[in-house]
Structures are given as C-alpha cells and as structure tokens.
C-alpha cells in the first residue's frame, strides 16, 4: 500500500489531456505467463497423444490408412504451436495469451494502444532469437538490461507488457456500515479537526482494512501510533478514552479518515 514503488512505467498522453502511466510487467510475471502457456501447449499434446494411442488400439487398420493425414496434421500442428499460437491469441484476445491472462499482463504498443497483427507477428517471430541459446536466455538478459523489461522481440515490434493490478476500492466505501458506531463510541469532535491529506487517509484506510487480521498486540501498537499521528489535537483524557479498546481506536480512525462526511 505504499505510494507507487519506483517501478518502470509507460507514459501515455491521451487526447483527453490526461497523462496515463501504465505499470510495466517485470521478468517474473513474464516468465510465469510463459510457463502457463508452455504447460498448456504441453498438456494439449499429451492429451492428443493419449487420444491417438487409444484410437490406434481401437481401429488399427483404419488408422493406418489415415496415417499420412495424421502426419500432416502433426507437422502443421507442431508448427502452429510454435509460431501461430502466440500471434493468434494476442490478436484475437486483445493482447493476451491464456498465460498472460492468468497473470493479468497484456501486450500493448508503446503508446498504450492495443497490438495489431504485424506488431504481434514481429514480437513472436523473434521468439526464435530470444530463445537462444536455451530457454530464452537472450530474451531474459535483454529484459534485465532494458528499462521497460522488453525482450528483443518487443524492441523490434515497439511493444511492451503492462500489468493490471487488482485494486480494491471497498475500503473507501465500506464506511457506512460502521458509521453508526461513532455515535455511541466516544470519538470526540473528530470531524471538527483539520481534514487529513490523501496520504494519511490512505495509511489509515490501509490499517483499517488489515486490522482484523493482525495480532492483538500489534493491532493496539499500530493503532496507537496512528492515533498519535492523525489526532494531534486530542487532549490527554480524550486520547486515553480513544485508546481504551481496539474497536474504539479504529472507530476514531475511521471517523477521522472520513472527516468531511
């Protein structure tokens, strides 16, 4: 929950005159996405193998006659898994192969727009080079050296992988359920004080979201520190009352975060 870590970003200027900055997916996400895709293809072939061997034991004669066709399909299929799978998936599923979808990363152009066929073809043809000498060694080294974690194929195609985060907005809006509480809890004139700035609100809300899962001792200690931080104008007596119980502390903090309600 810290304010965005110094991770690489792609900056996009939109026609609406708002600057977007997309977080770039690092080498870890990309390797995992590749592993998912690779195992998907692997299991596809394993399944196919079993299906075919079952067929052979069943209808041996008929299968022999078809063996030419099967071999053709095999050659074309192997080719498809090696080259076509990636580009077709990226073009038809908005820049995401199944593996990338699982990892919530997406291929986009460097200006943030979706990839087209040619960009996708370039970056996936370059897999052959990035794979050299084994297991994407070239690609990984390039990714480590490049500021936006691009492999050679991305450099040539002008694409970059961006990450989509799962961001929970509930912590901002879940207040009303507990809004009734402050009336009975002694949280004296919390709303009279100076409203907090966004960073403090963020900090308090992050604490409140996690508080139920914390150890009681830690929960009290962190709560006390936050009360001291945001409730500077409390009198000693009020402070002691607020700190009496964990619930009281958190109710005070919640009211404080929503000061202008």
């Amino acid at each position, binding site marked *: 929950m810290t304010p965005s870590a110094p991770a690489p970003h792609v900056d996009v200027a939109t026609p609406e005159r708002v600057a977007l900055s997309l977080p770039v997916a690092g080498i870890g996400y990309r390797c995992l996405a590749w592993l998912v895709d690779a195992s998907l293809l692997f299991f596809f072939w394993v399944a196919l193998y079993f299906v075919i061997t079952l067929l052979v034991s069943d209808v041996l004669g008929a299968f022999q006659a078809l063996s030419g066709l099967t071999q053709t399909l095999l050659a074309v299929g192997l080719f498809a898994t090696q080259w076509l799978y990636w580009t077709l998936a990226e073009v038809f599923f908005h820049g995401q192969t199944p593996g990338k979808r699982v990892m919530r990363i997406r291929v986009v152009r460097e200006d943030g727009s979706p990839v087209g066929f040619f960009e996708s073809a370039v970056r996936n043809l370059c897999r052959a080079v990035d794979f050299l000498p084994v297991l994407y060694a070239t690609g990984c080294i390039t990714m480590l050296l490049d500021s936006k974690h691009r492999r050679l194929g991305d450099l040539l195609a*002008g694409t970059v992988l*961006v990450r989509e985060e799962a961001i929970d907005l509930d912590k901002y809006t879940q207040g009303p359920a507990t809004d009734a509480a402050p009336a009975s809890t002694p949280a004296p004139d919390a709303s009279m004080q100076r409203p907090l700035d966004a960073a403090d609100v963020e900090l308090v809300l992050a604490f409140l979201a996690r508080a139920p899962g914390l150890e009681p001792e830690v929960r009290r200690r962190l709560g006390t520190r936050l009360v001291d931080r945001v409730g500077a104008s409390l009198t000693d007596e009020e402070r002691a009352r607020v700190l009496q119980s964990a619930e009281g502390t958190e109710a005070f903090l919640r009211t404080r975060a929503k000061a202008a309600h």
Partner: protein
Amino acid sequence: MATPLPTFVTRRRPDWDALQALLTRQRAGRLGLTELRTLDTLYRRAAADLAQAQTFYPGTDAHRFLNQLCAQAYGAIYQPPRERWASTRDFFRRDFPATLRREARFVGVSAGLLVLGLLLGALVVTLEPRGAELLVPEGVRRYVAQGRMWTDDLLSVAPPNAVASGIATNNLTVTLFAFASGILLGVGPIFTLVNNGVLIGAVGALCFREGMAAGFLDFIAAHGPVELSIIVIAGGAGLMVGQALIDPGELPRAQALQARGREAVKLVVGCAPFLAAIGAVEGFISPGHLFPTWAKVGLGLSLGALFWLYLLRAGRTVAGVARADVPEASASNRLR
C-alpha cells in the same frame, strides 16, 4: 481543499463500476450504439476524475485504480483499424509487392550473399574433393557414393502429403529465423544465407562430380526457383532490421528499429503462404519419377517467373484504385 478521498470515491464510484462493466462487455463482444455513447461519456468522466486524483490524491489506490481504468478504456476506444479480410486482400494485392519493390536493395544484397555461398560451396568441392566431407551432410554423401539420389527414398518412407507438410514447416522455420535473427546486428541472416548457399553449392558440385547432375537438377528444378527467392526475400528482411540497428539514420535507434521492423515483417508474412505452397510442390512433385525432368524444369521456371512477375508488377498500376475501394473509416469506427 479538495473533497476527502473516501467521499470522492463514494460519490464517483457508480460511474467507474458502470464503465468497468461496459469494458468487460466490450471485450466479450460488440456493443450497441447507445452503449457506445455511454462508454464515451463514462470514459471522459473517468478521465476527468483521473485528472482530479492526480492533483489531489497522488499515489493512492484510488489514483492507481483510475489510472488503470482509463488505460483500459483508452485501449478500447482508440483502437487501430482492424486487420480484416479486405485489408488482407489489400495487403497481398498491393502492400506486400510494393514493400518488396521499395526494399529491393536489401533483397539484392541478400541474393548476392546466397550466390556467394553457392559459389563458395561449389568451388570448394570442385577444387578440393575432400571438401565435400566437410560441407555435405554424411547421409547425403552415403547416397551419392552409391550413385543414388537421397530423395529417392523420401516417398517410400512417408506419403507425399506428410513429406510436403514436413518440408514446408521446416522451410518456414528456416525462413522465419533468417528474418528474426536480423536483430543480432544482421549477422543471423548473413549466416543463414551463406550457409544455405554453401550447402546447396557443395551438394550440387558433388553430384556433378559423381555424374549425377541430372538427378540433382531433377530434384531441385520444380521448387528451387521460388524457394530460393523466398529465402532471399526473408534474408533481405533480416538485413533491413540489422541495418536499422547498425545505422539508424536520423531516428533514435529504438524508433528506427520499430519502423524498419514493421516494414520487414511484411515481407516475411507475405512470403509465408507462397512458402507453404512451394512446400507442397517439393513434397508431391519434386521427389521420385512421377514427372519427367523437363516437366519439373518447366514448372519450376514458370512458377518462379510468375512469382517474380507478381512481386514486380502487382499493385503498380491499380494502386490508386485499390486504396479507394477499401474505405478506411469503415474499418476503424467499428469497436470490438
């Protein structure tokens, strides 16, 4: 002072949720006209909210959420024109041959490299008989020593369509690699071209020396011209990439690379179907003695001539017409 963050989020969140739902639907399929209008309105509102969040709540989760939401909506709204049937047709009718003619320089250099390899291979084997041991694969040498073509057995172990698909995919892989390895400063295509040239030259010279020139010609005549042309074109595409990397001109290196990469891949994508077709010729017609040599030579030469006629003439005169009958607006205003 701005509204406190929770108030801001609570007030604006319904719009964001609606936008997110619309974007999910947009990815799954098409949207109706009214939904598109809503999408547009909601996106603009979210962009305004993002601007507010950037000013008053930088670095918060709300800011990050809006940033991501706007990025997704931006991607959905500002889409490049879709590549559809019409543009595929247009690509083969006009764009691919035109690109090739524009980059003829690189294809020429690439052809030169292949010919250089051919000459080298042939020269080495002709001048130094033991050179064949170095340059010609052992399997091929064994067949030649017995006075037979190694391709004679090709069809007896597998039916022709299997041979054809195997050959086609193998050749496609070689071709694609000749292009992709261009990013290694152009060393890759040079190696692929010279290497393939040396191999063909050496095998040819070995056959000639052993008095099997007719057999060699018989095998390569039907598919050789087109297949070598395609390798040369793909090598040229690889050289384009290498050149952009070594001498980017007035652009920054990364930009030059992207611009040239986009042009170069057109040559490779354009060649792919022809390569698959010629793989069929190589599997069905070239091996064995189903067709007489003169027929193979005739077929090879005419296919090669047709291929180059297409590359050099297509789209040259009808460029203006072809552009007119594909209205670009209809392609770009369709959301998917």
